């Protein structure tokens, strides 16, 4: 990295002190961490200062998810500090999660002293080797004088281009030794090799806008890249949709980039997407993919994916182009910047799409919409999970609310029924699908937004995966609301077993569940059970009004399945709807089964 300020004084500090200085210079306010022998010098340096707050988690995996929640809800990188060996290996799931969902994370891992590396020393692990494939980049600091430069470079790499996790491995002696540190000119940092593109090529923008304007059945297919690009990108997206009048759908990761309540929004697409979104994707003639990556949960069967469309793909990462689906027009650049360029081009070119074609397209879409694919019946005392989320939405939508989820049916129902109007309000594990993400992520969100309402929409099985983080939440008096859709099953797996494996429910019943009220009680939190649909609203209100952390054990219909569903190996227009005659027993071929 270059850009160091000239003539500034340099001082000698310990490596740990340099680390803390550099983090402070980066504007870091919070670190999520867990101590151990190899990082004691760093904990010492933390102890001696007041700029950075340390949040003590209960397991290192929780630290990374908390940092992800912090990052996703603020747009700033999340910072993690763990010890060597088991501390670092516990962080691996979170790092992989952040890698898959492009979340900027700086993970500081302790390491045994330099001279012990390679000796199978106590709590030594080859952290650099283990984390190489699950980080955007990683560094082993080998010289205390290099500490500052590497920290700043790591932040640059984590936050520029397609964001991702970066590990800095810190041998103990490097943290103890004295070295020099100079604050670089952070505005003008640039990297020796890494130069992600920002603006799209002018000729590509021109062609893209022409293709868009000539469309008869267009659709915007948007993803998490918009959230990463930032609120400005989302504002421009709104303008582009308004200007063109085209329908828009979003991936799981992109929810909130465009307001869900707007009429142009067709809901989420993909495996559990809406009938209208998936059909519109299948039948469109021009697809404008903005910051999404055509992953397999979106496309369904590849050779049947949107067969008659020309596709524009805007992505900051060239390796996302033509990876799964070959596209007609790639535009490499930051999606916010590219949309800005598109807007300028559209306006200056005075483009006007064919109104009658667009009208026909909307008529077709309305027909799909009228199928009302998310309909369910709430006709008994037993709470339908969809109803629970719908009521939660109605009772929290006017507040300053952030939602996290775990992984499973409850996650998909949350995506379908909770309407997100703004970006950065929705934290979920998309790419990796990590059960146990939601509770620690909620911790991170609440630390960043102490006065907001933070709800973890959870499943009873996922909740148990990082349940220890309740203790973290209690230590920092975080008033999280944990809304468990308790169906006593690993519901999503049970659903697959029912639909694809002849209802052989192998090991998916949530046996020996704890009494969640007593569990809450033992941590000093409040627990409540919600059993009847008639009491749902009052109990949700009670949950929201109760000070401090609340666990709501919502007993929902146990055998409810999540529809619509594009079964494995099927095309978008072959989705199963809840009210289909054969919804509960679709024909899935052997091929489809292996496709997952």
């Amino acid at each position, binding site marked *: 990295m270059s850009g160091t300020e000239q003539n500034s004084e340099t001082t000698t500090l310990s490596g740990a002190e340099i680390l803390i200085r550099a983090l402070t210079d980066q504007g870091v306010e919070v670190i999520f961490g867990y101590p151990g022998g190899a990082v004691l010098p760093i904990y010492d340096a933390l102890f001696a200062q007041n700029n950075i707050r340390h949040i003590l988690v209960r397991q290192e995996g929780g630290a990374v998810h908390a940092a992800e929640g912090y990052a996703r809800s603020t747009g700033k990188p999340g910072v993690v500090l763990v010890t060597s060996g088991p501390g670092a290996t516990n962080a691996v799931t979170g790092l992989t999660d952040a890698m898959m969902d492009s979340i900027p994370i700086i993970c500081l891992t302790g390491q045994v002293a330099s001279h012990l590396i390679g000796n199978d020393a106590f709590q030594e692990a080859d952290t650099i080797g283990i984390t190489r*494939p699950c980080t955007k980049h*990683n560094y082993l600091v080998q010289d205390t004088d290099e500490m500052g430069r590497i920290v700043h470079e790591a932040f640059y790499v984590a936050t520029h281009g397609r964001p991702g996790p970066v590990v800095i491995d810190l041998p103990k002696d490097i943290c103890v030794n004295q070295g020099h540190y100079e604050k670089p000119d952070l505005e003008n940092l640039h990297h020796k090799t890494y130069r992600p593109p920002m603006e799209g090529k002018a000729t590509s923008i021109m062609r893209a806008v022409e293709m868009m304007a000539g469309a008869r059945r267009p659709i915007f297919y948007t993803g998490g890249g918009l959230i990463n690009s930032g609120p400005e990108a989302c504002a421009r997206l709104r303008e582009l949709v308004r200007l063109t009048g085209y329908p828009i759908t979003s991936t799981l990761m992109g929810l909130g980039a465009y307001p869900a309540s707007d009429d142009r929004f067709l809901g989420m697409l993909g495996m559990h997407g809406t009938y209208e979104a998936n059909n519109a994707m299948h039948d469109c003639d021009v697809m404008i993919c903005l910051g999404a990556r055509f992953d397999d949960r979106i496309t369904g069967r590849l050779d049947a994916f949107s067969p008659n469309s020309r596709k524009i793909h805007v992505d900051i990462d060239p*390796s996302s*182009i033509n990876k799964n689906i070959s596209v007609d027009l790639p535009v490499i650049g930051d999606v916010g910047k590219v949309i800005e360029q598109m807007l300028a081009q559209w306006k200056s070119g005075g483009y006007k799409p064919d109104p009658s074609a667009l009208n026909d397209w909307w008529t077709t879409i309305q027909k799909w919409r009228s199928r009302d694919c998310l309909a369910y019946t709430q006709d008994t005392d037993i709470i339908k999970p969809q109803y629970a989320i719908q009521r939660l939405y109605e009772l929290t939508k006017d507040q300053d609310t952030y939602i996290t989820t775990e992984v499973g049916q409850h996650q998909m129902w949350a995506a379908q029924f909770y309407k997100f109007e703004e970006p950065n309000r929705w934290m979920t594990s998309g790419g990796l699908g990590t059960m146990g993400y939601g509770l620690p992520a909620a911790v991170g969100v609440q630390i960043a937004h102490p006065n907001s309402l933070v709800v973890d929409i959870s499943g009873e099985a996922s909740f148990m995966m990082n349940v220890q983080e309740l203790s973290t939440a209690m230590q920092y008096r975080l008033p999280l609301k944990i809304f468990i859709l308790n169906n006593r099953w690993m519901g999503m797996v049970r659903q697959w077993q029912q639909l694809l494996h002849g209802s052989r429910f192998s090991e998916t019943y949530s046996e020996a569940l704890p009494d969640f009220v007593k569990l809450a009680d033992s941590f000093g939190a409040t627990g409540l059970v919600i059993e009847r649909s008639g009491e749902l609203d009052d109990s949700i209100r009670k949950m929201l009004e109760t000070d401090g952390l609340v666990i709501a054990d919502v007993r929902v219909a146990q055998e409810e399945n999540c529809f619509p569903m594009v079964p494995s190996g099927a095309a978008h227009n072959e989705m199963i709807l809840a009210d289909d005659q054969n919804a509960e027993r679709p024909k899935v071929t052997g091929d489809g089964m292996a496709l997952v």
Partner: protein
Amino acid sequence: MSEKPEIAPKHTIAVLVDNEPGVLARVVGLFSGRGYNIESLTVAEVDASQDRSRINIVTSGSEMIIDQIRAQLERLVPVFNVVDLTEDGPSVERELALVKVVGKGENRIEALRVADIFRARAVDSTLGSFVFEVTGDSGKVNAFIDLMQPLGLTEVSRTGVVAIARGADAM
């Protein structure tokens, strides 16, 4: 119904990297992690003053895979530049092999004769053996090795392919 096996053409890809620790592991890990082929790999520092190394990789795959390989390589932080030498115009490829041939009498004389035709040099010799150094494209090296087989070939050490684009332009 039998499908036509897809012919996966070979590509030689040159990667210019910052010579930092672990950079080779990163490149190789990318290939194994994503299921790409490596048929040959060479690495060496090429610019000490700028700490740059060059990695030459021979791989194979469909056009889509080769494009992916290139994009994935470019995504690695310490990578300066990636060039598909096979795609981007004519290039020169060379490989060096050291070939040990053990034998006496007629075979020994024949080995020397073949070496002469291939412009291979004997870089070591004893009364019962030679080590030949042969340079050329991989096809030539393969042909030399094939011919030495019946003449007492016992061991081969090859560098793998190094390659460079023809013409005045530099990578």
